[in-house]
Each structure stands twice: as structure tokens, then as C-alpha cells.
């Protein structure tokens, strides 16, 4: 870990401030250089290298390079259309379901390129869980919502499942509220409870990473606060990447923040998303290196 921090300080962030050239951030290294994770660094979960995502011929986001650390909360912020959700959905191959989506570049997860044809996307999604913007519990009982994932993984005894369900619901801070009505529909819960049920459902398959795509955007401030507290608790066990529109939320919950924005380009008339800056959250919000980040976090743009 220490090696890394020094590396980070030694390699200065390369930014090009001129009008025409794109701004490309190379945190810790330049593309093509051996990925730091490959150097036996266990504290990196993902290593994203020169990632571009296309929808048909339109390049939605380009040349993203960043590393995600273990047991940290990484926040992706930026204006609408900047590609932060698109990038997030690459981490568990959720973009596979958008037929026009194509991914260029590499996302290494434990040294395996997630977009290698040999990779089993289902196995990826089991290890890298996801919580969606709109709470989407299955139209099943609360118990079955949580037990669905573990059941897929093989036959488990009823008592084993009971234990797993309770554990997951406790971890998602929902157990006390629902323990007497596990057989009732998950659709009957409030929005905040539904979202925590979705978190419990993701936790129940014991993933390593949990991706959260604006998990609080449909929730009121009290429910949001509960989810944020929950994220603090579960990051001991999981690595979390959260996309949020709410900068205060990013500042509150994350250790590191990546700021994306949109850029005009020659390829198309639609704006392409780019990663502007990626650093410790504290630094991003107090003393960002890039003036576009500063403009965004201080509310002057975006």
C-alpha cells in the first residue's frame, strides 16, 4: 500500500489545458505501462485502462483510466450525460444488455480483463453486485428477495438460508423493521426500505464489490441518510463504487472521487464524457487540481 502512495506522489497528473487537445488523466501511470495491480498490489480491485464506451457509432465516454481501491467508497460525480453511469455499468458487464454498446480498452479485475471473451459475465455479476437507481425488488416476499441469489448458487438447507437472509438484512440495517413480516411482499415496503432490501439482496450473494447507481435519487433525506450510514458500515467488508448527482453525498460518503464531464468533440454532435480528475475526496472538494473540477464542486458549472 505504501509503495502505491509514493508512486502516486511521484507521477504527476498529466493534464493538457489547451483548447483542442483532450484532457486525459493518467493517475499513477501512463497507458501501456504495467498495471499496478499486476505488480502484486492487493489493494486495487479494479484497474481501468483507456476505457471508451460506444453506443453504436457514438462515443459516450472516452479514455478513462483509473484504479479502484479495496474497502474504499469511490464516488463518480459529474453533470448528466457525462458517462459516469456508463462507466459504472462496465464494472459488472451490465452494458451487455444494451445491444449497441461496445467497450474499448481494459478493465482489469484481479488481473482478469472483464471484457475478455473467455470471461463469464454471470460469474462477474455474482462477485460484483449492483444497486440500481430505482429500487427494484422482485415481486416476491422479502425473504425470497434476499434468498434468491443464494438459492441460485446451489441447494442450501432451510436453516442455512434463514441464517443468510437474517445476516444480509441485518447488514443492510433492515432486519429490525421487517423481521416479523418476512413472508410479506417486498413491494409493500417504503422506497427507502425497498432500496435497503435491494442492498441486502446484493449482499446476500457475498460479492466483493457493490456498484451503486444513484441509489438515493428516488429517496427522501431521511432514507438517504440511512443508506449513507449503511455505506459507511459495509465498506469494511465491501468495495463500493457509487454514482451520484449529489455532491454533498459524494463528499460525505466517499474516500475518493472521480469527476467526469462532457466535452464537445469532432466525432459527433453529441458530447462525449471524459474523466477530468480523480483524487482523494477531501482534496477534490477543497483543493482540486483542475479548474473544471473546482468550477463544478463550487457550483459554478454543471
Amino acid at each position, binding site marked *: 500500500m505504501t509503495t502505491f502512495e509514493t508512486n502516486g506522489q511521484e507521477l504527476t497528473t498529466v493534464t493538457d489545458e489547451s483548447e483542442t487537445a483532450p484532457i486525459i488523466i493518467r493517475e499513477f501511470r501512463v497507458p501501456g505501462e504495467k498495471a499496478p495491480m499486476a505488480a502484486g498490489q492487493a489493494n486495487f480491485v479494479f484497474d481501468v485502462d483507456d476505457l471508451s464506451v460506444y453506443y453504436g457509432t457514438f462515443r459516450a465516454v472516452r479514455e478513462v483510466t483509473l484504479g479502484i481501491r479495496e474497502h474504499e467508497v469511490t464516488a463518480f460525480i459529474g453533470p448528466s450525460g457525462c458517462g459516469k453511469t456508463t462507466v459504472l455499468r462496465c464494472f459488472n458487464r451490465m452494458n451487455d444488455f444494451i445491444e449497441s454498446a461496445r467497450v474499448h480498452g481494459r478493465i482489469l479485475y484481479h488481473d482478469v480483463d472483464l471484457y475478455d471473451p473467455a470471461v463469464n459475465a*454471470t460469474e462477474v455479476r455474482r462477485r460484483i453486485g449492483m*444497486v440500481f437507481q430505482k429500487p427494484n425488488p422482485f415481486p416476491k416476499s422479502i425473504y425470497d428477495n434476499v434468498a434468491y441469489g443464494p438459492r441460485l448458487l446451489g441447494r442450501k438447507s432451510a436453516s442455512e438460508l434463514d441464517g443468510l437472509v437474517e445476516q444480509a438484512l441485518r447488514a443492510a440495517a433492515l432486519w429490525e423493521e421487517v423481521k416479523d413480516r418476512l413472508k410479506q411482499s417486498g*413491494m409493500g415496503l417504503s422506497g427507502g426500505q425497498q432500496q435497503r432490501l435491494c442492498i441486502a439482496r446484493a449482499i446476500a450473494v457475498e460479492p466483493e464489490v457493490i456498484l451503486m447507481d444513484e441509489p438515493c435519487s428516488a429517496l427522501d433525506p431521511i432514507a438517504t441518510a440511512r443508506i449513507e450510514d449503511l455505506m459507511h458500515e459495509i465498506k469494511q467488508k465491501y468495495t463500493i463504487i457509487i454514482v451520484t448527482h449529489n455532491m454533498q453525498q459524494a463528499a460525505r460518503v466517499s474516500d475518493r472521487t472521480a469527476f467526469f464531464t462532457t466535452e464537445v468533440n469532432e466525432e459527433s454532435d453529441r458530447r462525449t464524457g471524459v474523466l477530468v480528475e480523480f483524487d482523494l475526496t477531501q482534496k477534490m472538494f477543497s483543493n482540486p487540481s483542475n479548474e473544471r473540477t473546482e468550477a463544478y464542486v463550487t457550483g459554478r458549472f454543471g
Partner: protein
Amino acid sequence: MTALSPTVPATVRSALTRRQRNVGGIVLHVSLIAAMLFTLLVLFTLIGQILVEGIPMFRERGTAFITGTIGSEPTKIGVWPGLYGSFFIGMGVIVLAFPIGIASAIYLEEYAHHGRLTRFIQINIRNLAGVPAVIYGVLGLVIFVDWLKPITNGESVIAASLTLAVLVLPIIIITASEAIRSVPQGLREAGYGVGATKWEVTRDHVLPYAAPGILTGMVLSIARALGEAAPLILVGAITGLLPRTSLTEKFTALPILIYNWSGRPSKDGAVSWENAAAGAALLLLALVFVFNVFAVILRTRYERKRIGL
């Protein structure tokens, strides 16, 4: 409660409380009711007519009208061969058309690449649903009666059943496709998110959610298959002397009996051929009803499941 403030100008008060005549709205309202009443009127006239003409037949013959066989006197006939033929045509549709149709819909919606070819196939399936039933009769005559004679034994219940299964296949595919398309993407993503495979998501989430819509398609297609007469005439349905129960010999079905009997001249007697046709129509309605009750029960169950009960 405070009274209206006297300072409120009288014009505001009168404007707010004035009755406004919304002529267009009233006309629309009345015409909508009229359209609905017209539909009901047609339906009840039809059912009334069948009941009035059909009940004397049951009074005269009792259960013998159901268990008896076809004859040359309206006072001595029964519909058994027709009931038998129609029942097995319905079963054939259930056994053949439902699985193939639903599987095709699952493939087209969930598995196929949504490119030009898929769109072309979908358009063609829609067109097939609009092909007149007689054309399917020709198809049945050529393929199921002629080419597949070793299996169907020519003009038989099996050939008729296959023909009608093919006839309703496009209806099943279209309704099932629409039902599958209406499944929220969030539900699929929720399944994929916990590591379910495509088949697991389809089986556990997509199909249960789409089930009410798929079952509605089944109800429609059963009714359609049992009611068709034209293709059956082409594949050889007759109204002569028939074996009581056979899947591989000459056959008939209820719509054929209704068509044939209602064309015969009335003679003096307790009951006429018209009564016989109406009686057969009543039994056809009952048969459709029996098939549909199962589908409706299932649909209600799945509709409750959608909200997680």
C-alpha cells in the same frame, strides 16, 4: 367555517360558481355509452337467440343430445363426434401451439439479436396472423393431410388439430411477445445483478411477470381455434356417419355441425335442425368456457404474484 368574504368581487364569485355547458364533453360521453350499449345489445341478442333456440333441443333429447351421434332426423341426433373432435382440436392447440408459440416469443424477445432479420421475422408473423383461415385450410390439406399422411392418416382429428395449431401460432407469438416486452427492464437487471443467467432471469422473473398477458393470448387463441369451420372443411371434416371416438379416422367438429345443420330445411316435429344447430352452438360456447376457465384462474394467480403476494 367562515363565510365567503364580502370583499370578494361578485364577478369572481359568479364566475367560479357558474355552471358551464360542456356540449362537446356531453356528446362524447353519450356516444361512448351508446357504443358500449350497442356492443352489449349484440352480445345479449346472440346469446338470447342461441338459448331460445337451443334449450328446446336439450329438453327434447336431454343428455342424449350430448352423448348421441349424428343422424338424419333432428329429433334423434346428438353432437358427440363434434364435441370429441373439437375437444381434441383444443387439446392439440394446447399441446402443440402453446409451447412452440411461447418458446418462439421468448427467443424473439429475449435471445435474438434485435437486428433487421428479427424485425423482418416479426413483421411476417404479424402478417401471418392476418392470413384468412381458409388459406390455412389449404396449407393443412397439402401438408398435414397429404404429405404427413403416415402420421395423421389423412383426414383426421390429428390433421385438423395440427392445422388449427398452426393457425393460432402467430396470435400466440404476438401476444406473448407483447407481454414479454412489457416486463420492466429493472426487473431483468435486478436478476442479472445477483448473478442469474439469462435463462434464470427469463424463467424466474420475465415469464411469471409476463404470464397474465401470455394467458390472455391463450384464451383468445383457444376460442379462435374452436370456432373455426373453414379450414376444417378443407382438411375433410364431414357430417356423415362417424366413429364415436377416433383420432385417426374421419372426423367432425362443433362448428362444422352448426354450419351444416343450420343450412338444412325445417321439417315438422318437436325440434328442428335450427334447434339442433343452436344446441350445438351452446355446447361450443360451453367448451370454450371450460378451456378458458383454467387460463383465467392461472391469470388471476399470476396477477397477484406480480405484486408479490
